[in-house]
């Protein structure tokens, strides 16, 4: 029974994930080892930057929440690819532009906007925009816009380290590709779980409460980041 096999695979994967997650998840912060590396790095370092980019994406819980929201009602491969590309486009533009032209945006505000994106997606999944305004906002455009913000947030964080100009562009591109690799990895796990869940009756039973909690988590992120902004 292939279904049974799938089920076991998924269960063990979920379990593994749950084991690793609590230690490694730290939203958009950069951990101490990475910090030390960034502060001392010189020249072109493709693989390390690739890795930092990927790690940033896989371990950023706010980003993962947004992905859960976006993928909740998306299951056609074509749609998934389209949405991811929109996000990538927005993200890459502002990351490169931000670092190269030395633009710094307050990280707390950016993270609050990312929290808002989670709220938006949860509300949208609940049919909130349709109910109130007759139609949902253009979801692809929304993903693009939040992608742009996300890129600015990263640009700001990377600039804190005064990355040396030597090899900067190559390192940034490596970082950006790493972000995409990480995004695909995270996406694969989330899709696998949601698509599996979608087959069960409980998906429809809990769809409303899941999106309600998602929205709530978004509000928490916003409150957390805005408080950080006001006290710092």
């Amino acid at each position, binding site marked *: 029974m292939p279904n049974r096999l799938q089920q076991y695979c998924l269960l063990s994967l979920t379990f593994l994930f749950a084991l690793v997650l609590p230690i490694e998840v730290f939203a958009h912060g950069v951990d101490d080892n990475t910090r030390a590396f960034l502060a001392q790095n010189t020249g072109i370092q493709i693989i390390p930057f690739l890795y930092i980019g990927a790690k940033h994406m896989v371990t950023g819980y706010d980003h993962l929440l947004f992905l859960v929201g976006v993928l909740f*009602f998306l299951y056609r491969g074509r749609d998934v690819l389209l949405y991811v590309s929109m996000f990538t486009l927005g993200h890459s533009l502002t990351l490169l532009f931000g670092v190269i032209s030395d633009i710094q945006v307050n990280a707390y505000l950016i993270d609050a906007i990312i929290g808002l994106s989670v709220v938006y997606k949860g509300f949208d999944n609940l049919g909130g925009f349709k109910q109130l305004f007759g139609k*949902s906002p253009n979801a692809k455009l929304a993903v693009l816009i939040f992608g742009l913000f996300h890129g600015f947030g990263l640009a700001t964080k990377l600039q804190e380290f005064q990355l040396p100009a030597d090899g900067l562009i190559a390192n940034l591109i490596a970082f950006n590709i790493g972000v995409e690799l990480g995004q695909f990895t995270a996406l694969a796990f989330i899709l696998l779980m949601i698509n599996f869940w979608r087959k069960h009756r409980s998906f429809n039973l809990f769809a*409303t409460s899941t999106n309600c909690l998602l929205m709530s988590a978004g509000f928490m992120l916003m409150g957390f980041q805005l408080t950080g902004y006001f006290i710092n």
Partner: protein
Amino acid sequence: MQQQTIVLTKATLFKYTLFSIIFAAITLLTIILPAEYNIDPTGIGHAMGLTVFNNSEVEKNVTTSSQKMSEKNKGLAETIDIIVPAHSGVEYKFTMQQHKKLSYLWLTNGSALYFDLHGEPEGDTTGYFESYAIATLNRMEGSFTTPFAGVHGWYWKNTSDTPVTVQLTVKGDFSTHGLK
């Protein structure tokens, strides 16, 4: 492509939205803010022991253990990384007896910092201090002998937009050290 969504009545939608806001607010006020920022309007965070992350008691314990370490390692060089945040100043002091010597070497990760190396007498409440060196440098090596018992060390000021890390290596006769 029209995106699939859940279909709820206006009343239900309102109910769920309200719930998500209230739930978020409660979690923020009782758990997240106390733990992350030591902001505890309800007192529940403290009651659950979540404010320990910002507790000065904990910091004290850490200094005591590092004090024991430094006493054990007397005569050995010790290296400390001090981060001076953007647009602010940091004081790092060593508690020393009179006529004791401290050799030091400090360097930043690039940018020069204004600094004032000085000492404050033990038990003084007037705010008096004596400066041993004032300059703007990114590196300095030397030593000083304390003219009186008290705390002696550096004030670094960072006027740039980015944090600067000072790596300080010291060797000498001090009992405790830390940020002030």
